[in-house]
């Protein structure tokens, strides 16, 4: 595999010399020790192959932006090296450098020039850029008359007018309406098929799992995890929930999958099983079959408010269905230490055939961000098979009744 990007032992420190005069003295070779070195990134190593898509996740301040700036070469690493093969384009700051007193077309010339393209190259790409932006006659109007959506359209069109070898995308970036958003992602996917490597920054586990081959979790300026998107996202979710007294365990299940359990463990899931309505435990479920999800929860300390939530996820870790007893208004209050709560959730398994997992969460409100007693990924794994229904595809079971008339 050809390496497009190779990041080796990269560290970035912001130095405080106490006085800027001392910093200036260092340029002239005066050996001044910085008073303080603040390392934002340290010991970062990873590489990206041709056509690979890598997700970069991490909390605010984990060093994501600094890492991207080092990759796009706007920042210089303090130690280590970043080698890039080919051209990098970043869709992070769309419309950067756009002037309101120029027309869309003039701004395209300017922005593409900033990216280093010659007049001839820009002229050749101009019809495509204009067509992709789809803003009609506005293309020759002043940008100050544009809506923010129109400006985004032009900015995205010019940023992706030339296929880069590495494309950096901030997934949270909104590029206008849903229609244009789809168009943008389609273009990104096309680039990837043609061999462009992707670096995607996102907080959305769905997007990371959907688009990436690999994910990197940054925490405190270091790579905490580099691996399968599902594993990394589980670790990331656990990290968000991490509070004081919160711990995180990662165990390898018999199936080879990595299970992440985190929380304060003031309440824990003691057992979780899937039963048929007849009462017998099952592992294989028929599509549409009525089942009971039985979860026993033990309180290990006094808990004023206890909410149980569960989420059914598909093989790729995408949520299929999730809810909790906060939403159903069944919050258990004043649960004494040592007591066991036995929950039963009854529902028809209206999902398509495949392998699924259930994650559980024991919290005090509707999110795991306030109190996270326990968060357990892959708490239960089960398989849905289609044994008694006509063939269908997809993850939802929405059985139709067809009617048709033959028109004379």
């Amino acid at each position, binding site marked *: 595999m050809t390496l497009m990007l190779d990041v080796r032992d990269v560290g970035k420190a*912001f*130095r405080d010399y106490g006085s*800027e*005069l001392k*910093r*200036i003295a260092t*340029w*002239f070779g005066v050996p001044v020790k910085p008073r303080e070195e603040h390392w934002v990134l340290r010991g970062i190593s990873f590489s990206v192959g041709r056509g690979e898509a890598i997700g970069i996740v991490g909390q605010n301040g984990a060093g994501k932006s600094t890492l991207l*700036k080092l990759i*796009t*070469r*706007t*920042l*210089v690493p303090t130690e280590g090296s970043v080698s890039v093969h080919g051209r*990098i384009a*970043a869709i*992070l*700051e769309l419309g*950067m*450098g756009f*002037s309101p*007193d*120029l027309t869309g077309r*003039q701004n395209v*010339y*300017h922005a593409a*020039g*900033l*990216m*280093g393209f*010659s*007049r001839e190259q820009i002229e050749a790409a101009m019809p495509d850029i204009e067509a992709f932006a789809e803003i009609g006659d506005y293309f020759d109007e002043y940008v100050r008359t544009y809506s923010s959506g129109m400006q985004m359209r032009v900015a995205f069109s010019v940023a992706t007018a030339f296929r880069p070898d590495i494309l950096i995308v901030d997934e949270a970036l909104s590029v206008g309406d849903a229609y244009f958003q789809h168009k943008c992602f389609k273009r990104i996917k096309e680039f990837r098929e043609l061999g462009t490597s992707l670096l995607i920054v996102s907080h959305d586990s769905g997007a990371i799992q959907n688009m990436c081959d690999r994910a990197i979790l940054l925490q405190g300026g270091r790579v905490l995890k580099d691996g399968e998107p599902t594993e990394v996202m589980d670790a990331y979710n656990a990290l968000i929930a991490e509070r004081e007294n919160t711990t995180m365990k990662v165990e390898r299940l018999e199936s080879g999958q990595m299970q992440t359990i985190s929380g304060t463990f003031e309440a824990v899931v003691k057992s979780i099983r899937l039963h048929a309505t007849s009462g017998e435990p099952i592992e294989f479920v028929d599509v549409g079959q009525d089942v009971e999800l039985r979860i026993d929860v033990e309180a290990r300390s006094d808990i004023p408010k206890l909410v149980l939530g569960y989420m059914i996820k598909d093989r790729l870790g995408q949520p299929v269905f999730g809810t909790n007893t906060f939403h159903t208004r069944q919050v258990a209050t004043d649960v004494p230490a040592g007591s066991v709560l036995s929950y039963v959730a009854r529902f028809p398994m209206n999902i398509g055939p495949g392998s699924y997992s259930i994650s559980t969460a024991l919290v005090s409100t509707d999110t795991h961000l306030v109190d996270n007693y326990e968060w357990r990924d892959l708490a239960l794994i089960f398989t849905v098979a289609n044994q008694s229904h006509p063939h269908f595809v997809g993850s939802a079971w929405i059985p139709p009744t067809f009617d048709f008339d033959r028109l004379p």
Partner: protein
Amino acid sequence: MSELIRAVWSYRHFIASSVKNDLKARVARSRLGAAWMVLQPLAQVAIYSLVLSRVMGARLPGTTNQYAYSIYLMSGMLAWSLFLEIITRSLTLFVDNGNLMKKIFFPRATLPFIAVGSSLVSNALLLVATLIIFALIGHMPTPAVLWIPLLMGITVVFSLGLGLILGVVNVFLRDVGQVMTVVLQLWFWVTPIVYMPSILPSGFGEIIHLNPMYYLVSGYQSVLLYGAAPPLLPLAAMAAGSIVLLVVAFLMFRRAAPEMVDVL
């Protein structure tokens, strides 16, 4: 160095279009448009002429034109406005473009070229307007005008060199920018632009020779007012000194560049 030249060359279209955009943005949505670039310095000249021509006019030796003082004033202003524009722009060059430098990778060397390019265009417009006014008041340009491009060149190199050194330091020590606004005002008044060196009390005459701008301004004055060649020896020294200054600025920028974006 060659790498720098190559980068700038490959961005030449970008530099050209940026200069155009910069000039456009300056006069965007104003009725008189580009005329403002000339009208503002000319208005300043008009004010000084109005206030000072009676006091100063009689003291210009060797001239017969009744507008001699105005011509003297405009010649000096031509040099000063180029110097002032380049130095103030270089001073805030990196601070103003901080956002761009933080977000997009492009050869930073294009930035001074854009600043100089747009300053040169507006100064050239002012030169043309000045020559037209000279002609209108009966002061026809002599072949000595051909010295102007050289004088402009030295002024550019000097102001860019000094401006970039201060501009790099200004990124880290913003006080430099504040101090310079005061220093530049003082500098204007210690340079014989609105007055003649001959009116200075004895003793100041020597001090004035320490002011590099004195040589450039008096070069413009002798070329435009007297139609004579500028004093060559001091000018050659100025040119050499300016090039050294620019090289120092370049080396300083080299050293500071990795840390510059950190603090912007």
